[in-house]
């Protein structure tokens, strides 16, 4: 076996490192997502902080060996705070030439790439458009290449088991995982338990995967070609019970928690759309909590059924992504004018139109704020990390029912699929939710009578005697709710609906600044870019720069101290994965400040390195 590494060292060399960024890549059927999640869970249990980034093609099983069929899973583990999946890789595991070709540029110079040598056939090289074999032509001289006959070794290891060829080949990802476990001193225990559970009743598959995982582990141990192994000490995280969650699961759980806390049954009307469907997948499991999850015939029926459920007194939710939000626009206007509570979750993806379904973007902000006919403001909030999806889904539900209005929660493909450790929150410790339900008729009751502080109307639910009333999409009289074409009433109702949303500012937290509280540069972000911006700001703050970071979870209305925070900095840079939508909103709301934009629209998260450069540059040119 050939290697580009110069001086093989003893396996006794154990290096203590701060953190590592690893990416597993292969065909979309190679099990890279599973490999990645196993490494993640094992590391989490060891106590490391973690952030992950699955990156997979829109095609379910793209042609084998093709460049566009490459599926990847990136994980960043560390002994101190980890807030992004990392920019550049410390280790790349490539199961085929296509995976190598599409990912090698992300590997840091001098770092290690493990390849399955058996997959570097003439045919696979051609499919990856390699004219010459990169393992032989010197193009990888800047890296440490570990070539392993992974396919043959897997076959050899399983030759005594009565398995078909397909099942044998499908377990070779466990060989790679075994090797990486050894390199980073991870225990195999969690994955062995996982096999036992996953293959219950299929003991042969459990045995095969166990054998291959161990074979990979011991292969790495005995292979002198792998020069070092590394340990990453547990991170100092707050005490508590943790689990690894991705954003979509956390969103679903936040809704469950809100349902229990409010005493309202949870209703989801939804239609499958990437990358939001996993919220539906999670909630359909939970009938035991009385969850009614309805897969409708289209996006419109999804939201409409939720409006019906809301009218009938459920905590009603609809989940979607950008194109679906466009379809829901008219119905959202109906919920808005009827002043019914409704949570709309938009897991943003690359747009416009079908765009980049499996990639991330923040380009639905203006659609969320303005994408309806007429004057129809709704509350818009955004989640900033996978675990924060739990909090913001809970908050979205609380605001919707307490203020009797639709709330749009924006997440995105990056945090929806990405995962991180979550310190589990007990429902007992969450804030109360008080829906303004009217239990019985009072003499002075009118459908559109309002709470004087929040301006929310009461929730009069079908089945309640004496509160029979009609609502609808036509403009309504300010008190009775009956149809009204009166000009002044229309203006009054338009204003009061807007004022109601505006007053939500009295009920949401103020902005807090990370890093410098005043100084040269304020980094402004919103939603799923929190991790990248936080890392970048922390990095350059540690170098002594006077940089602060504010991140918006609440976008309409904005926190009351926004202008006061902005005024403390010499320059403001608004960073977004779009062409400047938040900057546009800030210019409209706070025109007294000047905003610099930093935008990226490649379907990918920010690179911390690029942000660092940009921020230093802005400070230097102040």
């Amino acid at each position, binding site marked *: 076996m050939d290697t580009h590494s110069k001086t093989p060292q003893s396996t006794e060399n154990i290096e203590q490192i701060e953190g590592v960024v690893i990416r597993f890549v292969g065909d979309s059927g190679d099990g890279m997502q599973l490999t990645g999640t196993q490494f993640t869970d094992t590391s989490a249990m060891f106590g490391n902080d973690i952030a992950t980034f699955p990156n997979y093609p829109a095609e379910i099983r793209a042609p084998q060996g093709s460049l566009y069929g490459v599926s990847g899973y990136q994980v960043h583990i560390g002994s101190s705070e980890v807030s992004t999946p990392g920019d550049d890789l410390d280790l790349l595991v490539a199961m085929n030439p296509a995976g190598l070709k599409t990912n090698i540029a992300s590997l840091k110079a001098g770092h290690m790439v493990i390849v399955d040598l058996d997959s570097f056939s003439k045919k696979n090289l051609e499919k990856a458009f390699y004219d010459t074999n990169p393992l032989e032509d010197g193009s990888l001289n800047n890296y440490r290449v570990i070539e392993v006959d992974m396919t043959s070794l897997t076959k050899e290891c399983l030759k005594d088991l009565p398995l078909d060829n397909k099942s044998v080949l499908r377990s070779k990802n466990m060989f790679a995982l075994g090797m990486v476990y050894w390199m980073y001193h991870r225990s195999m225990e969690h994955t062995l338990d996982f096999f036992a559970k996953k293959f219950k009743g299929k003991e042969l598959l459990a045995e095969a995967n166990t054998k291959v995982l161990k074979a990979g582990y011991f292969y790495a141990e005995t292979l002198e070609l792998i020069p070092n192994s590394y340990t990453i000490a547990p991170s100092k995280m707050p005490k508590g019970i943790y689990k690894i969650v991705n954003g979509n699961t956390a969103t679903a759980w936040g809704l469950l928690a809100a349902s*229990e806390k409010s005493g309202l049954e949870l*209703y989801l009307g939804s239609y499958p759309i990437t990358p939001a469907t996993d919220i539906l997948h999670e909630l359909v499991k939970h009938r035991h909590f009385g969850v009614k999850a309805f897969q409708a015939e289209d996006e419109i029926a999804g939201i409409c059924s939720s409006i019906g459920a809301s009218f*009938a007194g459920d905590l009603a939710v609809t989940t979607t992504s950008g194109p679906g939000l466009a379809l829901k626009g008219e119905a959202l206007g109906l919920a808005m004018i009827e002043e019914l509570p409704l949570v709309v979750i938009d897991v943003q993806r690359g747009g416009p139109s079908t765009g980049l379904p499996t990639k991330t973007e923040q380009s639905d902000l203006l659609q969320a704020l303005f994408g309806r006919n007429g004057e129809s403001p709704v509350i818009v909030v955004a989640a900033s990390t996978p675990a924060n999806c739990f909090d913001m889904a809970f908050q979205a539900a609380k605001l919707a029912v307490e203020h009797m209005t639709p709330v749009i929660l924006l997440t995105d493909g990056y945090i929806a699929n990405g995962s991180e450790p979550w310190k589990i929150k007990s*429902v007992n410790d969450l804030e109360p939710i008080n829906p303004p339900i009217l239990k019985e008729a009072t003499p002075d009751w009118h459908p559109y009578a309002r709470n004087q502080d929040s301006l929310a109307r009461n929730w009069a639910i079908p089945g309640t005697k*004496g509160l029979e009333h009609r609502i609808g999409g036509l403009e309504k009289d300010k008190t009775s709710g009956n*149809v009204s074409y009166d000009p002044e009433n229309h203006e009054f109702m338009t204003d009061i609906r807007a004022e109601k949303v505006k007053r939500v500012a009295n009920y949401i937290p103020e902005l807090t600044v990370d890093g410098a509280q005043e100084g040269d540069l304020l980094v402004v972000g919103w939603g799923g870019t929190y991790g990248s911006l936080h890392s970048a700001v922390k990095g350059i703050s540690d170098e002594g720069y006077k940089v602060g970071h504010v991140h918006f979870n609440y976008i309409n209305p904005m926190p009351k101290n926004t202008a006061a925070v902005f005024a403390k900095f010499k320059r403001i840079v608004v960073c977004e994965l779009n062409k400047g939508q938040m900057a546009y909103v800030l210019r409209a709301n706070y025109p007294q400040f000047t905003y610099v934009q930093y935008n990226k629209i490649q379907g990918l998260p920010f690179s911390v390195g690029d942000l660092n450069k940009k921020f230093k540059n802005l400070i230097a040119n102040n």
Partner: protein
Amino acid sequence: MEDTAIQKYTFKDFQSDQEVRWCPGCDDYVILRSMLKALPEMNVKREDVVFISGIGCSSRFPYYVNSYGMHSIHGRAPGIATGVKLANPNLSVWVITGDGDSMAIGGNHFIHMLRRNINLNVVLFNNEIYGLTKGQFSPTSLLGQKTKSSPYGNTQPPFQPGELAIGAQARFFARIGGNNPKDMSDLFVQAEKFKGTSLIEVLQNCVIFNDGCYTHYTDKEVKEDKQIFLEHGKPMIFGKNMDKGLMLNGLKLKVVTIGEEGITKEDLLIHDAKESDPTLHQMLIRSTYPLATGNIRSVDELSFEDREMQLTEQVRTKSPFKKVDDLLFSGETYEVK
């Protein structure tokens, strides 16, 4: 409906305080009166009645009934009503729609509602025209029909709502002339009793934009000769003198006269609304002479919300999760000390 003592309501109890604003002479008034008469007969509390409508002349209906109601958006009433029913299956939920609302813009929701067999009662006001937008052809307008948007004649062949409904697996379909309040009220009560999606097509005259579109079937002088009113278990007999009837001739319906060619009442088809095979129901729906009215199809099957509730109960009994915390703290957790 846990409280067994349901107050005895009258027509007036269900009348709202809103002024009715349809054109004078519109059949919609007949439909509203028939409903207000039927509601007290349904043994349902007023606070448990919900009317959901879409957009169009018919869709103003909920404002005129003193119950819960929502005048929603074009074509989407089935979706909204589905949510209401799933949220609270105890409610008696009505969908009020028209031929434009349910056959055109809301066609998708209409067929899926029927397919699922959710327990909603749907009144389809079919006037074969767009009234509220002032006279364009609808999906039930006739070929060649001249309208505001087809001045030279309509080139789009029409849907037959019943045919579409049965294609979408409707279990309950009834049809009635817009000038027949008594039978209409009866059908509304039958629809409420039926546990599944009940669709009642009302042949509704639009006095302004499509006046007389059904007169050849519904006029007093001709209706007994041109319509057959179907009742489950009764022979298919019609005519002023009750001397006409329906028989099968191969794969077609055939109109026969009792007393001619030795045919007696016993030879006529007996209407079986409960037959799950829809073949004969489809033939009746397509028949232009006589036009079939009454309860054409009424096949009992578990409703969607009952399926849902049964499944939920099954899952709930087996589940280890009682509180959300049980879920959150379950599975692969680890402790940081």
